């Protein structure tokens, strides 16, 4: 039967005996939801900022962007949609900012899901205005390209032919930024921003490994642990982990943005969850002690 009481739904040691310690293990979930929402809203409205220290993984990505040779493009593969936008949005913005900051020309592309092409375009357009960058010259959006691995395989041979038209339906060959871009080897760095598992394996298997194109990535915090082995092996040059990675990049390029803003809320949300876990365990241990003693 479904739990209608709104309680935790799981009785720990001593819970059946009732009492204060047992109740600590059964805080109704509504209180947890309310407290979490309150903490997040509080920190969005009145943030308590903490200093952000860039990690080695973020430094790796920033250095990889800086190392892109003159005349080569940075390809930002925005493979995300609004479900992960809280993390991938600030990450994309941070990578775009880093490109503008280091005067690297970049192109956006989306392999999956299609929504990423539009969302990433909105972000890049806004930032481009601040840098007075021109679409088609300093940056471009290749749009959503259907076929994932087939697109990557075809790009090895002929990028303009594979891409065809950009986000606005304009042939990419007509864009000045595409001058000198023939194959995937004319791309100096691929930055994969994604919340989807499996995309990195394709990029590494078809582009980074066989073609030697440097590869870096930005992942949602939940999927990043799975990609540390690629970082250790040097197949990934650098990595942004969740919103924290975006905040670290913003700190590195001295352009505080959404990533930094999220950090306060996320910090206190993590503390709240840890407190809940401690409270639940306190109740569990003490109730078990009472059961044993009497």
């Amino acid at each position, binding site marked *: 039967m479904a739990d209608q009481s709104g309680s935790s739904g799981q009785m720990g040691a001593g819970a059946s005996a009732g009492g204060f310690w047992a109740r600590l293990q059964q*805080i109704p979930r509504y209180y947890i939801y309310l407290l979490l929402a309150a903490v997040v809203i509080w920190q969005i409205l009145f943030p308590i900022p903490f200093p952000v220290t860039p990690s080695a993984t973020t430094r790796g990505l920033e250095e990889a962007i800086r190392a892109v040779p003159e005349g080569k493009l940075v390809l930002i593969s925005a493979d995300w949609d609004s479900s992960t936008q809280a993390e991938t949005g600030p990450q994309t913005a941070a990578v775009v900012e880093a490109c503008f900051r280091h005067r690297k020309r970049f192109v956006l592309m989306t392999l999956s899901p299609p929504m990423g092409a539009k969302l990433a375009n909105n972000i890049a357009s806004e930032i481009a205005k601040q840098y007075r960058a021109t679409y088609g010259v300093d940056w471009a959006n290749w749009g959503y390209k259907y*076929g994932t691995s087939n697109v990557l395989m075809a790009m090895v041979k002929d990028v303009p032919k594979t891409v065809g038209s950009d986000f606005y339906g*304009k042939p990419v060959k007509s864009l000045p930024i595409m001058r000198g871009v023939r194959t995937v080897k004319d791309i100096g760095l691929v930055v994969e921003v994604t919340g989807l598992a499996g995309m990195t394996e394709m990029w590494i298997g078809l582009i980074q490994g066989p073609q030697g194109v440097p590869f870096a990535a930005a992942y949602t915090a939940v999927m990043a642990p799975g990609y540390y082995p690629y970082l*250790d092996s040097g197949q990934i040059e650098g990595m942004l982990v969740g919103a924290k990675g975006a905040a670290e990049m913003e700190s590195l390029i001295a352009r505080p943005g959404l990533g930094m803003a999220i950090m306060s809320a996320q*910090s206190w949300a993590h503390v709240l969850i840890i407190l809940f876990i401690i409270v*639940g365990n306190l109740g569990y241990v003490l109730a078990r002690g009472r059961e044993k003693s009497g």
Partner: protein
Amino acid sequence: MLTSWLGPQQATTPLVYHILLALLASGVLLYLLHRYLGPRGRRGLIVVATFLFGLFFGLEYFLPVRTKTLWPTGLPNVGGSAGNLLTPGIEPMSNILAVIGAFTVGLGVYSLVQVHGRNVLRRRAGWYNSFAFFLSFFAMFSFGLWQYSLHLPEPIPPTLTLTQRIANDGYEILFQGLYAPLQAATFSLLAFYIASAAYRAFRIRSAEAALMMVAAFIVMLGQVPIGAWLTRGIPNEGAIALLRLENLGEWVMRSLNSPAQRGIALGVAIGALAMSLRVWLSLERGTFFAEQK
């Protein structure tokens, strides 16, 4: 109309004719297959096609590079990626896959319309949800296509005609104002469930559970700036720097998590290889029409 959808550069007359001709030929072919092939014939066709496509991509990947090509290609040998005798076929094969993929989108739409159409017509329980599907589907479809067909320049100029304004604003409201926030809100609910689940599930019932909890605390605090702030008193140089929460979190991720992930990745890859072989050879139970009599 096709010219405005495809863009002025792409919608050349031969391309339009090719698309129409291909659609017609596909329709006729599908009708003939449906009409004259029984379940056994259809299954056989799919098994053979799967095997041939799998064989092609497998051989192309494993055959040694720089041998003679099977057929001539106009493409230059760019970037030293000559490939092998099957490599020139990758592009047409990929195009075929892309076209088939596009058809599956159409199939998905057809299926949705069929299911929700029945719900609305028969006034089944919750029919209004199905009606909402039609409403949102056609609204997004119409405004999306309309806005795209205008090929507005970037950045959007401030002076748009009334038609352009309606098309652009309508699309922006539906996409940016409704669809994106709805999807984000649905996903963000997970944070609340995770908080509640962590509170309920994390109990120190054994030494392993305690170890897991300690690791979780370290990573959770190491992933946010408050962790670094809490241990800011510890010097960030020398061996003692490892005790700073951000460094400890990074150590857990790289020294403990990474080897475990590597092992999992190897296991998954071997499993995927075995599974792929079974699907390629149509040995997998329930493949295609196996359950059809």
